[in-house]
């Protein structure tokens, strides 16, 4: 049967094609597999992790969080000075060049910061609005505020304040961000949207001798298990976020190291304080007592995380001695009884359908709440509509989380606990005027112990008021081949690659 012969032939041709070796692997290429895809490289128009992390590899900011995440360190600015009244910020630029070889000038800095604060496209205006005057002077940049606004300085460490070459951006417009030029350790050399970002070492990088690797490939691999398989197959050197249940297994494998760090993130259940019975603080506290957070961290997070005292991450000014609500179902029932709900109640729990960890948490929560008579029906919703749904107040309970963009607690406390503010205590509509006052005061207070005390007080009030069920701070995890040294995830959730080396 000749037709079958032809088929055999065709099959073998394909088999031959398969036998071809894949493209030669170049030494000193670092392959990182991650799940978040960068969407755009315009720092003022993005807020997704994939974009932010990549931008931070390409662009520099004046100052940046240090690796410990507790303070700030010099970036493009070699040094800085804050006037005693906090109204004038003076930065002295270092001798740095963009990857195309042109020097980074104070004019570039002024251009970039104005863009972040004023441009219509900017999603981050509020972070830079308080800066009202920009001036360049020699190799210095002088920023002026009309009113004291302490977080402004921290905000300059945000990726949105990345320094761009003025000339190229004005000339090319949006097209610039298709092949951006920055002063960071790497430059973009290839971008297959949805698949991978290729970076090459910036020859003009201001840190002498860095980065150590020639090229970096960021591979977008959405499925966590697929990332693990990639690492094991040697097709990735580093993977982010392996499935939690596989971490122990991975760490026992030869040639693979796993690591984890707890970033400024907190997971919690939003309670709609405008809807009974969540308008009753006893009920809200009862729910906090009813959840066995240790069990969640152990059973769902596989110990990759820690129990949270409140929704505020443990960061600058945090009171490390603050204790979480203990697991105490008896106390929970007692509080519910006090609120006239001895028999419990029925409610709905909103969960982001795309978040696998949250799906599991929800199942566990449902069981735990059931123990105290609270019947929670799980309601899945698109990640994309979570925000608008909770904003509109169309929910009872919603499993959610928050991360800090800066190393200063101001952003998150404002977001989570202040009402009225932009998010009205993250859509819980919970309100505490004392906390509101403290917030206003804190923003005008210069960094120091006095400001620290205000934060501590705010967090305590927040905990007592329990507008949410506080759960845990999950770890960010990664795994790498042993030949890779120096990779870590920073408390700000991103990673730097200039110090990473590959040994053969």
């Amino acid at each position, binding site marked *: 049967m000749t037709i079958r012969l032809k088929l055999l032939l065709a099959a073998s041709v394909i088999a031959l094609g398969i036998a071809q070796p894949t493209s030669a692997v170049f030494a000193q290429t670092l392959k990182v597999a991650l799940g978040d895809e960068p969407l755009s490289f315009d720092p003022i128009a993005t807020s997704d992790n994939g974009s932010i992390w990549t931008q931070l590899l390409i662009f520099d900011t004046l100052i940046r969080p240090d690796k410990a995440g507790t303070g700030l360190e010099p970036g493009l600015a070699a040094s800085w000075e804050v006037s005693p009244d906090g109204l004038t910020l003076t930065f002295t630029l270092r001798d740095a060049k963009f990857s195309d070889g042109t020097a980074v000038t104070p004019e570039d800095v002024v251009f970039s910061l104005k863009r972040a604060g004023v441009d219509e496209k900017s999603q981050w205006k509020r972070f830079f609005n308080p800066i009202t005057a920009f001036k360049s002077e020699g190799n210095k940049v002088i920023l002026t505020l009309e009113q004291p606004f302490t977080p402004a300085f921290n905000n300059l460490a945000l990726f949105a304040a990345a320094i761009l070459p003025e000339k190229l951006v004005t000339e090319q417009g949006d097209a610039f961000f298709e092949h951006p030029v920055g002063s960071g350790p790497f430059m973009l050399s290839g971008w297959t949207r949805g698949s991978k970002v290729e970076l090459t070492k910036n020859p003009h990088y201001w840190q002498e001798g860095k980065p150590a690797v020639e090229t970096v490939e960021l591979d977008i691999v959405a499925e966590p*298990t697929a990332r693990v398989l990639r690492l094991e197959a040697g097709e990735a050197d580093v993977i982010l976020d392996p499935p939690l249940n596989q971490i122990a297994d991975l760490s026992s494998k030869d040639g693979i190291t796993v690591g984890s760090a707890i970033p400024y993130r907190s997971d919690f259940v939003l309670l709609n304080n405008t809807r009974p019975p969540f308008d009753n603080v006893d009920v809200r506290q009862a729910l906090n007592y009813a959840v066995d957070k240790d069990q969640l961290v152990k*059973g769902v997070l596989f110990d990759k995380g820690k129990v949270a005292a409140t929704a505020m991450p443990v960061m600058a000014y945090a009171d490390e001695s603050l204790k979480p609500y203990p697991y105490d179902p008896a106390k929970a029932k007692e509080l519910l009884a006090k609120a006239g709900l001895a028999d419990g109640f029925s409610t709905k729990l909103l969960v982001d359908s795309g978040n*696998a960890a949250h*799906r599991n948490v929800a199942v*566990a929560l449902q069981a735990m709440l059931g123990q105290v008579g609270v019947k929670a029906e799980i309601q899945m919703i*698109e990640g994309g509509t979570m925000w608008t749904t909770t904003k509109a107040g169309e929910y009872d309970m919603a499993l959610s989380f928050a991360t800090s963009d800066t190393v200063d607690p101001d952003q998150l406390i404002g977001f989570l606990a202040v009402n009225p503010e932009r998010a009205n205590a993250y859509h819980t509509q919970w309100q505490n005027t004392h906390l509101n006052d403290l917030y206003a005061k804190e923003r005008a207070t210069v960094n120091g112990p006095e400001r620290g005390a205000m934060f501590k007080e705010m967090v305590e009030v927040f905990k007592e008021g329990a507008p949410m069920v506080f759960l845990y701070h999950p770890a960010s995890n990664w795994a790498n081949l042993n030949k890779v040294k120096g990779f870590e995830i920073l408390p700000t959730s991103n990673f730097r690659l200039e110090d990473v080396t590959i040994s053969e």
Partner: protein
Amino acid sequence: MKSFTSRYMRSYAGVAGLFMLLVVAAVVVLTPLLSPWDPFAIDFGATTLPPSRLHWFGTDNFGRDIFSRVAAGAVIDLRLALVCVFVPMTMGIAVGLVAGFYGGWVDTLLMRITDVVWAFPFYVLVLAIVGVLGPSEGNLYIAFFLVNWVGYARIVRGEVLLISRLEYIEAARLLRFGGPWIMARHILPNAVSPALVYAMSDAVLTVQAVAALSFFGLGVQPPAPEWGLLIVDSIDYMRQAPWMTLFPGLALAFSGVAFALVGEGLAQTLRPEGR
């Protein structure tokens, strides 16, 4: 009807498929009696246990009994498959009958609408509809109802056009019977059989599609033990606890094969010439 049953019983594939569906049904009915485990009861002390005498299919990452969950999931999946097939089938048959029988502008209008829906890849449209409406079993139904009827409409219309040309319809027309009467008595029974055969292969694909939607987090909601969801939630455990994906996968494949076999049986019964 009697001759239909006896002819169907002569098809080995059909009998095997029916038997397999009965097995699934029996498991659903008997499991609460046989298995002491609540499909929703969490036990953090007994997570990811391999299959044993105690837990026939093992336990999952919450310590839930997988056998009980797979059996409970059968209710959801079979309900989804049947509803998502038969409701659109009825809709499609109605559209096809009306379009084919009345012809003219009615036909043109209905068939243009059919063409439009037909133009979208099945998965794309279902994903988009569920994605837009939000994931829930109710919205799954809506998506399938909106999408799945087109195949039937096209098939039935084609059949109606063929049958209408046959003489006895002409005769019936001449005898001045009303349209609905002719459709009900003469056309419907003949046009329905290919639709019924198509429905069974549709059922296989529907069970698949429901599972695929779960994969994207757009399907039935946890902790419901829908099979696709069981598989999706255990993909990360594929190597550590393979039984977590294996058994729901087998259940999915088992019922898929059952539907396919019933379809073959129906095909052999309803159109023995293999037309």
